[in-house]
């Protein structure tokens, strides 16, 4: 067995995401969102004045904006009352900004990440790891050789202090402004934790860096911010994983991700989202891609009660390209509303979007996408393919691929299929010895195979495993 996958087998499948830890926090903010709360959080973080001002400005915008309620088929957000959540919990660890040795963490937190297999993965397959527990990053480490080349991988709060100029320039200014949508505004007001990645010109970070986000407390919100700046000719693969145990009260996750892909740079951003099924997962992720640059978004959405997520790429420079790969799985009570957005704002830009979604036991998946080709984006091309597989008549799947094409010399391809899993197909496999569940699982793994075969091996393995777990219904 090759060592880089050992961590995947050692964790017990059922216990893996579901366990809860008693909450031991050093600082817990009051429920709800007021100017006072934000001042307290900012002060607790010892932030510069400009960041506090940005937070307060975002808060005002948040208060003015309406909740999205009128999108066709969108998840029901009526339960999401921000006044009911605890927006900020600083876990009880001594070192602010995260320790760089797992052994320095309190036992309960270390045990959490051990169970999730993160330290094992770090040893074998990653250039660096960040781990966030509640609102703060508790562990952060990167191999020295990358540090020597000027690569920065640190928690976002620390970056505000140590790389103030870069952060001040890029943080929610040109990529995801708080005015983008209500949850981006909310995020801008109470963001905490997340990663800052900086890759200097022409540096290729060969192994991925990974960040893991864990919510442990009931009724909390997690609002981490990720900022990736990849300079000209550089290359980096960032993986994020997320999970939480299930409680009866709802949890809210509203992350913000901003990626700056420099000229001829290449950034891959992969997400394995496995939030508990009481979590509302409402994120804004966006990349700006310069000339010849390449952005890849890979998302597996398995968990959460409701997800609204449409990673966006703005292809700003000539020849910039984008690739979206999205897998969504919705079981009972879940509405996974996800998709992709691409803006072709320059000539010779390219995008490909592949989406596969699976719904069962009354779950709902939506593909909601937008491809915009601006006037003047000559010789650009886009290919969109979305396929949906439903297990039964109770489940729903919708495809809403919007296209806005304002340029004539472009190549546009679009395919969509929606189908129900075939009884004859299941019987065929059963007649060869597979039981009902295994037969369905085989059909599903075949359905997503065109996508998984393009993924890095460690990611594909993890994804397959999650799909298996979903099929077994053991993630509750």
């Amino acid at each position, binding site marked *: 067995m090759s060592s880089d*996958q050992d961590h995947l087998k050692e964790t017990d499948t059922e216990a893996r995401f579901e366990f809860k830890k008693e909450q031991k926090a050093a600082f817990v903010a009051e429920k709800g969102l007021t100017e006072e709360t934000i001042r307290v959080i900012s002060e607790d973080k010892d932030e510069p004045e400009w960041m506090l001002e940005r937070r307060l400005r975002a808060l005002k915008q948040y208060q003015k904006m309406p909740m999205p309620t009128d999108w066709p088929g969108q998840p029901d957000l009526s339960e999401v009352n921000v006044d009911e959540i605890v927006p900020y919990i600083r876990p009880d660890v001594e070192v602010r900004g995260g320790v760089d040795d797992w052994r320095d963490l309190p036992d309960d937190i270390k045990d959490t990440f051990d169970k999730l297999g993160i330290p094992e993965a770090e040893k074998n397959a990653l250039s660096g790891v960040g781990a966030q527990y509640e609102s703060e990053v508790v562990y952060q480490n990167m191999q020295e050789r990358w540090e020597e080349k000027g690569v920065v991988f640190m928690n976002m709060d620390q970056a505000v202090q140590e790389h103030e100029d870069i952060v001040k320039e890029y943080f929610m200014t040109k990529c995801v402004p708080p005015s983008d949508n209500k949850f981006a505004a909310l995020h801008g007001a109470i963001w905490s934790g997340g990663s800052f990645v900086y890759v200097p010109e022409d540096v290729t970070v060969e192994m991925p860096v990974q960040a893991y986000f864990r919510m442990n407390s009931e009724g909390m919100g997690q609002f981490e911010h990720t900022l990736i700046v990849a300079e000209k000719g550089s290359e980096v693969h960032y993986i994020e994983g997320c999970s939480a145990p299930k409680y009866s009260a709802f949890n809210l996750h509203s992350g913000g991700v901003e990626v700056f892909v420099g000229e001829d740079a290449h950034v891959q951003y992969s997400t394995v989202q496995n939030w508990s099924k009481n979590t509302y997962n409402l994120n804004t992720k966006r990349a700006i891609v310069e000339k010849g640059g390449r952005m890849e978004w890979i998302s597996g959405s398995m968990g959460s009660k409701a997800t609204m997520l449409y990673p966006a790429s703005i292809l700003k420079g000539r020849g910039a390209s984008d690739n979206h790969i999205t897998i969504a799985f919705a079981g009972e009570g879940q509405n996974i509303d996800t998709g992709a957005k691409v803006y072709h704002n320059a000539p010779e830009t390219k995008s490909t979007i592949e989406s596969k979604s699976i719904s069962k036991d009354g779950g709902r998946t939506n593909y909601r996408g937008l491809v915009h080709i601006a006037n003047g984006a000559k010789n650009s091309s886009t290919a969109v393919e979305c396929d949906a597989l439903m297990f039964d008549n109770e489940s729903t799947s919708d495809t809403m691929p919007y296209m806005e094409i304002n340029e004539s010399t472009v190549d546009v391809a679009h395919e969509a299929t929606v189908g129900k899993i075939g009884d004859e197909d299941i*019987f065929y496999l059963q007649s060869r010895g597979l039981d009902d569940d295994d037969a369905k699982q085989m059909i599903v793994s075949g359905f997503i*195979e065109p996508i998984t075969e393009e993924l890095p091996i460690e990611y*594909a393995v993890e994804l397959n495993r999650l799909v298996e777990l979903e099929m077994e219904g053991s993630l509750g």
Partner: protein
Amino acid sequence: MATLEIKNLHARVAEEDGEQILRGVDLEVKSGEIHALMGPNGSGKSTTSKIIAGHPAYEVTDGEILLHLEDDDFGDVEIPDDARTWNLLELEPNERAALGIFLGFQYPAEIEGVTMTNFLRTALNAKIDEREELLFGEDDDEEAEEEAGYDTSPMEGNVDDGEVGVAEFQKLLKEKMDLLDMDEKFMQRYLNAGFSGGEKKQNEVLQAAILEPSIAVLDEIDSGLDIDRLQDVSKGINALRDEQGTGILQITHYQRILEYVEPDHVHIMLDGKVVKSGDASLASELEDKGYDWVREEVYEAA
């Protein structure tokens, strides 16, 4: 030696006011024998084959299907005395498969994204596991679960998962493919996806060769085959019987395949019953005189 015994089988389409299709089928097939089941369209041949395998679209209203097993049926596996006779109608399709029933489909399903290798090895291991469980009531799933993890590409399945490992399986596969004169490239293709009609049928026979059933029911395996492919497929069917001692129940409209796969017994179905049985000469007689001859004979006698 296994015996498949169909007694007075009555069945209808499993829906409200579903059409009665079988009206008392009697048939017995033993390991090592080749039976041809012939009859005009709509006489119930395909339905019989699907019910043997457990297709959920049909409801059995009377009669039974029994499978009798003997010691040599699963190689060295000793079969407990109380697990020698099975009422197939009480078993799930995969449990029937585990006990040695195989159905070759007239229209095999196309499963995208699942390679032949992955599918066949998974099926073989599932079959062996399920058989253990049925015969001995053992369930070693939990143990296997703990060891789960991948060494090869996840789409190939786990190396150590199941009774038959990857290396051993590859060897077995190569052997069977040589036997059937099949191109190895097949194995990396997705299960039946984009296969020609002939390739699909060849693949059905290959699957039977890998799974080594006691009784294989082949539903119109000869339809849509050109003469070369018909010969390949026939060779494969003969090999199932000669090399593995599989009993064959071959459903066909045509005499043609019987020239290559000579049946020990020929049965003619009419209106949901087996109305006439005989040796290979019955098939030639049928070819000459047509089904009307049988119909007249049967109904005059009645």
